[in-house]
């Protein structure tokens, strides 16, 4: 019940639908929005007029435009929560909504608990006395179910997995704590580092698998974005055509209307894939071309994996290397050495050395050669990224995902502490991880847990 916080959430149902709203509430709602929002008529923004829609763009930290949006500013107290509220109306579907929410969180907002808007409305006196009894009753009823709600949201198997991980965390901690509190009586001596390390690795694996499952599940539902990048004239567009043509039946090709990019949809290994062909990246002074290249960078930045195309008939140069640098950590990569029908000037071994975890495929896109090899490679990369061998869990809420991510960070820190610090610090990180996971199972008393009981109210209502 931290009233000084600013909360943010996607306040429209997740799923299909053109428009979605990210809503912020709290004292920093304006500041956070203004950090992300670039109004087309920027001079007006220092004191935005209440309840007016402002047209503009959301930019990420690197200044890249994420989406074109309409933003409304509503000052306290005449709002639902009686706090400053901002609503950002976005147009580009669920993936973009998530990115915008993430940017808001990175700028200092906190993810709203289910029903937190309503709770704030109540505490701030927005909900009147005659409704108080009803609110109390809902709180009462709802909170008694808090754990079941969590269980239902996660569904049996995953709840079991989380309980198991908590048990494992306790099991890993117990011998350390016994050793601290009974230094002499400990017959077995110091807990072995190798043993602890093995336990931590198992824990990392278990949490990562759930997170991977979450992502894969999302990938199945919402699609995976794959960007084709490379210098101009290396054969990116013919590659796109080759890939899409084979999928003709389920493909529909969109011409780049607002952007100098082509996208198409296809299905590979069960994944719906949004394939984006980008403008060739190279140094230029032409402003139009510059804008196109900016967009290519953004597409590369947002893609889950990259297909980097190289002209196999000309030696690698500085521009190719620069494009390689666009790859983010954890992003999948397939390198396509195109034009294999021409004389080969790029030694594959060199590429293999630089990109150990990437797949390298030779194609002649224009003739359709090597395309099925490329498809297999893309599928393999996605399976690796998204963990094909773990069972697919049910939908996990953003909140649960955040808790799992935090938990994994604590376990990683425990691993780090094991190398450089005394075991007390390892135990501390395990305690933190256990407490964190308890926010899902309802066993840790914490602020977040208390807020959870308001989940009766639809998020962002």
């Amino acid at each position, binding site marked *: *019940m*931290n009233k*000084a916080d600013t909360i943010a959430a996607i306040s429209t149902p997740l799923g299909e639908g053109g428009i979605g709203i990210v809503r912020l509430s709290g004292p920093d709602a304006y500041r956070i929005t203004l950090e992300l929002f670039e109004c087309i008529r920027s001079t007006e923004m220092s004191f935005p007029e209440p309840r007016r829609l402002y047209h503009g763009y959301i930019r990420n930290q690197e200044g890249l435009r994420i989406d074109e949006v309409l933003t409304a500013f509503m000052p306290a*107290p*005449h*709002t*639902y929560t009686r706090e400053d509220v901002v609503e950002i109306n976005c147009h580009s579907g669920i993936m973009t909504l998530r990115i915008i929410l993430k940017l808001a969180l990175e700028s200092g907002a906190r993810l709203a608990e289910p029903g937190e808007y309503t709770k704030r409305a*109540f*505490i701030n*006196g*927005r909900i*009147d*006395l*005659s*409704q*108080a*009894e009803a*609110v*109390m*009753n809902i*709180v*009462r009823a*709802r*909170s*008694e179910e*808090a754990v079941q709600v969590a269980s239902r949201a996660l569904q049996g198997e995953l709840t079991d997995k989380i309980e198991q991980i908590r048990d494992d965390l306790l099991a890993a901690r117990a011998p350390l*704590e016994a*050793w*601290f*509190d*009974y*230094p*002499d*009586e400990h*017959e077995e001596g110091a807990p072995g580092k190798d043993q602890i390390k093995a336990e931590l690795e198992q824990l990392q694996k278990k949490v990562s698998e759930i997170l991977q499952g979450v992502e894969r599940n999302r990938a199945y539902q919402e699609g995976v974005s794959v960007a084709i990048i490379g210098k101009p004239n290396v054969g990116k567009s013919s590659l796109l055509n080759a890939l899409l043509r084979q999928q003709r039946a389920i493909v529909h090709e969109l011409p780049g209307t607002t952007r100098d990019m082509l996208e198409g949809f296809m299905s590979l290994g069960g994944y719906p894939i949004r394939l984006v062909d980008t403008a060739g990246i190279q140094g230029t002074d032409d402003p139009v071309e510059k804008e196109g290249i900016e967009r290519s960078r953004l597409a590369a930045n947002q893609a889950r994996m990259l297909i980097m195309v190289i002209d196999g008939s000309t030696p690698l140069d500085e521009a190719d290397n620069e494009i390689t640098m666009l790859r983010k950590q954890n992003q999948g990569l397939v390198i396509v050495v195109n034009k294999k029908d021409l004389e080969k000037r790029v030694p594959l071994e060199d590429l293999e050395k630089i990109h150990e975890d990437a797949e390298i495929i030779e194609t002649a896109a224009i003739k359709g050669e090597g395309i099925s090899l490329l498809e297999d490679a893309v599928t393999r990369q996605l399976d690796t990224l998204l963990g094909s061998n773990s069972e697919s869990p049910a939908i996990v809420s953003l909140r649960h995902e955040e808790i799992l991510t935090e938990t994994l960070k604590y376990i990683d820190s425990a691993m780090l502490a094991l190398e*450089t*610090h*005394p*075991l*007390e*610090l390892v*135990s*501390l990180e395990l*305690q933190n991880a256990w407490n964190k996971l308890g926010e899902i199972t*309802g066993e840790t*008393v*914490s*602020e977040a*847990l*208390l807020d*959870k*009981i*308001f989940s009766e109210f639809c998020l962002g209502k």
Partner: protein
Amino acid sequence: MTNLTDRDKEINSSNSYDVIVVGAGHAGCEASLAAARLGCRTLLLTLNLDMVAFMACNPSLGGPGKGHLVREIDALGGEMPRVADRNLLQVRLLNTGKGPAVQALRAQIDKWGYQRSMRIALEKEPNLIIREDMVEEILVEGSSVSAVLCRSGAFFKTKTAIICSGVYLDSKIFLGDLHYAASPGSITPSHNLVKSLQNLGLTFERFKTGTPPRVYKRSIDFNSLIPVNGDPRAPGFSQVGKGAPSEQIPCWMTYTNSSTHDIIRDNFSQAPIYTGLIKGSGPRYCPSIEDKIVRFADRDRHPIFIEPEGRDIDELYLQGISTGLPPDIQEAFLQTIEGLQNVQIMRPAYAIEYDYAPPTQLKMSLETKTTAGLFFAGQINGTTGYEEAAAQGMIAGVNAVQYINKKDALILKRDEAYIGVMIDDLVTRGVQEPYRIFTSRAEYRLLLRQDNADLRLSEISRSFGLLDDERYRLYLAKKIYIESELERLEQTRYNPGSAIEDFLNKHNSSAAKHPINALELIRRPEISYLSYLNWEGKEAPLLPQGTLNELESQIKYAGYIAKQQHMVEKTARMHDKPIPEDFDYQKAKNISREARQKLEQIRPGTIGQACRMEGVSPADVSVLMLYLERPDTMDHPEAQESEEMDDE
């Protein structure tokens, strides 16, 4: 009788006191000293003046958690650490290398010396009278303490009473199938006091515990035992103590074996805990040897630590082998143990069952909820351990004085002190077995280091008037040195390639790639503060003990410490939120009935305390918080009119 001051005469001749402490064990001694030092006319009543500060069980103090408590008592101006330091037989710093906050001091203590030193401290206190008598009744006026009545017929008026009765309430000693009403030191236990307290509305339950045999030193073959020696450089408990004695006495170690276990198993039928003779529950963490053999059946041996009871007496304590078996069986199984083949028992082990008052009947100040001015401290609250008792004694003593002066009670928070953790646990959650402190009970353990107990608590205790000038000066010296060194080290910068390279090389530390300050250097695992200081050509000045260790912890674990501090602050806003003492839970209909009853009984002072209660779900706390946020909903749950409706 010479040199009597007027004040002395007044106290001696009067039958009226501010504070009466019942029982002169570890809790009672601290309680009475604290009250007397804060200017209250204090009377300490004991069943036997020869038993003041008697260590009824092991001849040692400290260890993880417990050692922390003793350091906190020192920072609060208590007596236990000073008395212990005058009677050290052996001192060891435990858990070095395991982490900054689990490090703890443990010492073997000369029991007889300890009692004598504490007796002297009590006698020296001008505001304090000690007197032998058994308190039989606590008298009240209205619902406030007014007087105590003793077995001898003596009657003392008082504003407050602190009951520190230890295991002397209706206790029963068990030796095999033999049992009789007695307490440690073969003293007749108190019976009528329990009746009197029950009449005030307090309830009692029973716990059991045990103590191992004591044996003749001359009957032990030390050649086959493993010695455990003290650490010559170990500090003491008190900031004003001298640390390890020049001549330390070793402890010894041996193990039980399968023949030992066979004898014990063959005689289970004579152990009171298995014959059902003892009904009270005992501590899981302090099991009898019978318990150990049953519960850890796969273990083929259990360690025994042999500890001296005094510097120049022949009695030894066998830690790890408490038992309820009859004395002849005790001797028989002991004689199967390596080094103890010819052992001669001096005092047999026994089990003891006693009354305690579930501590949920107390406020955080340790005052009973039923009776104003009546405080409980120590084993009566279901705890075990000298350190736990002394710490409660301090708090009860201070709070009796605060009560008299109508001032706010001294309540330490869970992120401030182990004392805070312990009292909150007791009062909020009650006890299912005798309660002892563990470091893992503290959720903010990293903040509660033994070496920063004075940094955490000295200002608080000074503001209450508890801390003497000497200890306060030492605290200031430590604080100022640490703060100024942290600042100096942060501002001392080195460029790559400078003279620092040789130093780093020498300690197998990688070269600096960027400019680096001295704090960052010392944060490296292979560099210590002292090695750095040495390289600088400096020498640490003479400092209060623990200063360097504490400084180094603050440097090396700065990131972790800051993170825990952040967690404390994050929850503080909610957890520190006060609940009015007169909050009407009956009107808070949306809290479940069970939780309402519990809340009514415990009356938590803060939301944080409510969160930690058994039987109160997060849901109940949330509803409670809503009531606190909108008290208007309590009085008029069905009110119709709202404020203006907003357009939206």
